[in-house]
């Protein structure tokens, strides 16, 4: 597991360097979700072909597309494309759009996301296709907590529970922050666990969403509970901006790029491990 911790450190460096280079992007959620992405792509999901159809392999759907930086870093480091391409993040003529897109044919992306609330429906559809084709692999999706303000999620949550879509694992990034502030203030989410349960879901909760071992364990547990008649939701408590002391827990870093000095300060806290991508 020490190795995965090193990758997490490197991923956080990638995220900050990419956003700093583009002078735009969303560091807060990306840093807070790093352990989930590392766990999912290194330990949980099975994928070989890396094709858009995702047949005979697990599939992942990022619904809150603004945390694209973490996804791109992990995809690159898992060999979907060259890590040098990370320098193109949010620049013109690039496959690494501000929000993920399939238009430029970036491997690893199945659908565009960014306009919030659409990913769960798409991931559900992909799960249903797997059922039709007797494909035993799973569909995974990731969502911001603020994102579940969007009504389409609740259509999807109702559908998945009512129709018992059980080859699907959704994770909510519960960092309690959205653009305008604390989720309790902007739009109180109430008891998310009970809400999902009342819609017929199996809900798992992990309070240590930035501990790689805990995230791996909860995902493994979720995987074991799959195909037992219920869709699965993981409520993953994370810290926005985790890993950088001046970003920790603050919604101020939802969508702000660090300046030169801030980058230097942040990278100092995150030593290079498996190697930076070249500028």
């Amino acid at each position: 597991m020490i190795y995965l911790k090193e990758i997490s450190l490197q991923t956080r460096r990638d995220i900050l360097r990419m956003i700093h280079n583009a002078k735009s992007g969303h560091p807060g959620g990306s840093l807070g979700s790093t352990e989930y992405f590392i766990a999912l792509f290194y330990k949980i999901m099975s994928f070989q072909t890396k094709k858009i159809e995702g047949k005979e392999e697990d599939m992942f759907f990022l619904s809150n597309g603004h945390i694209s930086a973490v996804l791109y870093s992990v995809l690159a480091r898992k060999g979907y494309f060259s890590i040098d391409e990370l320098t193109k993040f949010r620049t013109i003529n690039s496959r690494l759009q501000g929000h993920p897109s399939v238009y430029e044919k970036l491997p690893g992306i199945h659908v565009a996301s960014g306009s919030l609330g659409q990913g769960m429906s798409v991931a559900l559809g992909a799960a249903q296709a797997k059922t039709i084709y007797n494909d035993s692999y799973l569909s995974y999706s990731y969502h911001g907590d603020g994102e579940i303000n969007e009504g389409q999620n609740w259509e999807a949550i109702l559908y998945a529970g009512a129709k018992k879509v059980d080859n699907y694992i959704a994770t909510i990034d519960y960092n309690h922050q959205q653009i305008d502030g604390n989720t309790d203030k902007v739009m109180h989410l109430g008891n998310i666990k009970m809400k999902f349960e009342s819609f017929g879901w199996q809900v798992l909760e992990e309070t240590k969403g930035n501990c790689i071992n805990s995230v791996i364990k909860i995902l493994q547990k979720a995987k074991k509970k799959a195909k037992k008649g219920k869709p699965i939701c993981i409520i993953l408590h994370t810290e926005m901006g985790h890993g950088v002391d001046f970003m920790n827990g603050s919604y101020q870093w939802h969508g702000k790029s660090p300046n030169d000095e801030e980058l230097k300060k942040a990278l100092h806290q995150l030593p290079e491990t498996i190697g930076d991508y070249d500028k």
Partner: protein
Amino acid sequence: MINDSYKKELKETRAGFGEALLELGRNNERIVALCADLTGSLCMKRFSEEFTERFFQVGIAESNMIGMAAGLAIGGCIPFTGTFANFSSSRVYDQIRQSIAYSEKNVKICASHAGISLGEDGATHQILEDIGMIKMLPGMTVINTCDFSQTYKATLAISKSEVPTYLRFGRPSVPNFTKNHDFKIGKGIVLTEGNDVSIIATGHLVWESLKAYKTLVEEGITCDIINIHTIKPLDEELILQSIEKTGCVVTAEEHNYLGGLGESIARILVNHLPKPQEFVAVNDTFGESGKQIELIKKYKIDKTSIVKKVKRVIKRKKVEL
């Protein structure tokens, strides 16, 4: 030329969709269908009963339906979604834009009860803006069929096209006059030939144009009547050929004149062949409750309006000569 015998065979446009979908289901295992609590209205009941594992009842939740269709398409299925045109377009515009058009998903959005001819339900259920909305999305094919047979053939054709498609059709029973016409996406159909004016029509206005033809012939006016069922991509070659010959055009559609077929044709004329054009379309307003026949008269999208616009455009052509 179309003869009067077709008038006797009135058939529901939407039923053509239901029949073709069933046939597709039987012949192609990739075909799946989703419906938002309107299986009867969309004629999808038989498909839902015969292919229980390939039919998805999503309830009254159109956004989720569009998203799920995108996901099913990713997995290799060819999803057909079914609900009223209003709920297939304006209600789910962002879902179509991001999850289908921008994401290039092979989803067939099948939109019934389009235009004002849904009648009594009124403006909340009628839609006169959908062609404009959907044609503006890059990569979308937009088709508006005119009768049972054309809807049937279009449904079969779009299953093979592998591109995101919006198939728009109406509810009322209309003469089934395209039985013997080939259907090819993007290819217009010449129904009558003449020299004085081109009438280019789509959807239910095709039959109204044919009705106008009789009156016009009696007054010594001959016309090309062209059925453009595919609004995007548009059969520019056929349209330009006809207008080059006749020197003027009337476009006819059950849609707002803003954003519809008429505007697409105006754009080609401005670029290639500036000639007088008149629009038979709804004049930038919402619909209302009423019988179909009353509504198309009030909103000036009937045979009488076509005849009037034809005369006006011919007059303009002479002045501008």
